[in-house]
């Protein structure tokens, strides 16, 4: 495992002589356990999946069959439902992540200024994070229910229209988004809040002396300083949203019809209901490819930040 010349930036002082091990081998030693697990349990299944994409693979008719070249890719790419699922995923991710970021940051500012019962508010805010979508999602289904749910009961009392949250194909997806917002906005909010509190005081005091407007302070100081942490959250949330499965499975099972069928849920239906592992793997590989390309662009700045800091002596 190679290390770039830069990594010797942390040159071992003479004392290291007794330690005997060179920096390079020591560093390799450190990552070995993690790498072993990752290599075995990431590469092996990946290779298997990749292999299946070139073969006939209807599991319920027994084992994996003969090689069929690129046929599976042709079938998958010609499958309208696949692109439909992709489109749903994109819609979901953009809206959910967008709202989570905006609301999360908003809540962070709200709490940042607050002085009263800080600990309590934070603690309560964390609660949704600690619960499992597979379980709480069930209770959201109950809350959403048009006959027995609390939501429509409240709306009704306020004289507002009572939507068919999960039954109306025009809004079902947004109901799932609302659930995801409920579960993950606190994550964004807490990180943003932590960021706010870690901000250095001096530049703000200076700005205040110059009598800079709130807006100017926000745009020229606060957000630029928060950018790295917010970006990291953005990336994390995007990855999770694109891979969304539990929420859909428990709330709508892709319904009504296929209105809320995300990529991963369609994968589940193809792989674990129809047992066409060939198609499922093919979709997964395509999915992985898209994610990788996105990652190359999205992660490069982050990785650069990491490596630069790792190199600086």
């Amino acid at each position, binding site marked *: 495992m190679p290390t770039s010349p830069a990594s010797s930036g942390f040159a071992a002082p003479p004392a290291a002589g007794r330690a005997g091990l060179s920096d390079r081998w020591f560093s390799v030693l450190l990552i070995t356990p993690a790498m072993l697990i990752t290599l075995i349990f990431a590469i092996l299944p990946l290779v298997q999946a990749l292999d299946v994409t070139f073969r006939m693979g209807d599991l319920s008719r027994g084992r994996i069959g003969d090689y069929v070249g*690129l046929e599976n890719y*042709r079938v998958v*790419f010609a499958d309208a439902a696949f692109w439909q699922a992709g489109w749903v995923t994109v819609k979901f991710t953009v809206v959910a992540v967008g709202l989570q970021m905006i609301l999360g940051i908003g809540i962070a500012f709200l709490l940042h200024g607050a002085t009263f019962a800080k600990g309590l508010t934070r603690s309560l805010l964390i609660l949704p994070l600690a619960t499992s979508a597979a379980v709480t999602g069930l209770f959201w289904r109950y809350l959403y229910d048009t006959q027995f749910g609390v939501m429509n009961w409240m709306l009704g009392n306020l004289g507002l229209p009572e939507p068919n949250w999960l039954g109306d194909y025009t809004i079902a997806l947004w109901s799932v988004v609302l659930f995801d917002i409920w579960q993950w906005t606190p994550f964004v909010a807490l990180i943003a809040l932590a960021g706010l509190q870690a901000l250095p005081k001096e530049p703000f005091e200076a700005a205040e002396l110059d009598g800079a407007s709130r807006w100017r302070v926000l745009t020229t100081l606060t957000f630029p300083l928060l950018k790295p942490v917010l970006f990291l959250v953005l990336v994390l949330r995007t990855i999770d949203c694109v891979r969304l499965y539990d929420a859909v499975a428990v709330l709508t099972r892709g319904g009504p019809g296929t209105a809320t069928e995300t990529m991963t849920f369609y994968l589940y239906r193809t792989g674990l209901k129809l047992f066409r592992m060939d198609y499922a793997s093919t979709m997964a590989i395509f999915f992985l*490819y898209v994610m*990788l390309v996105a990652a190359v662009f999205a992660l490069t700045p982050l990785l650069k930040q990491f490596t630069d800091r790792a190199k600086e002596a």
Partner: protein
Amino acid sequence: MSFSQGWDAGFKSLLIYVGVVFFWLIFLERHFADPGTSVLLMNAVGIALGLGFFLYRRRICRAERAAAAVEVAALLAEDR
């Protein structure tokens, strides 16, 4: 070209190749009479682009290194 840079370029070339394959299967193949020629062409284009990118990156890296070497030489010259 350091191993690290090579790895980076190689990985991206691979992505480019696979990208070409996917793009081809999604948009172009339907315009071909028989899949055989389509696949052949597809691979040709994919490899060409992938390799091209790799070589391109290598040239840049070499150029950079050369430039760096010149600088170092200059510095050494100054020291003397």
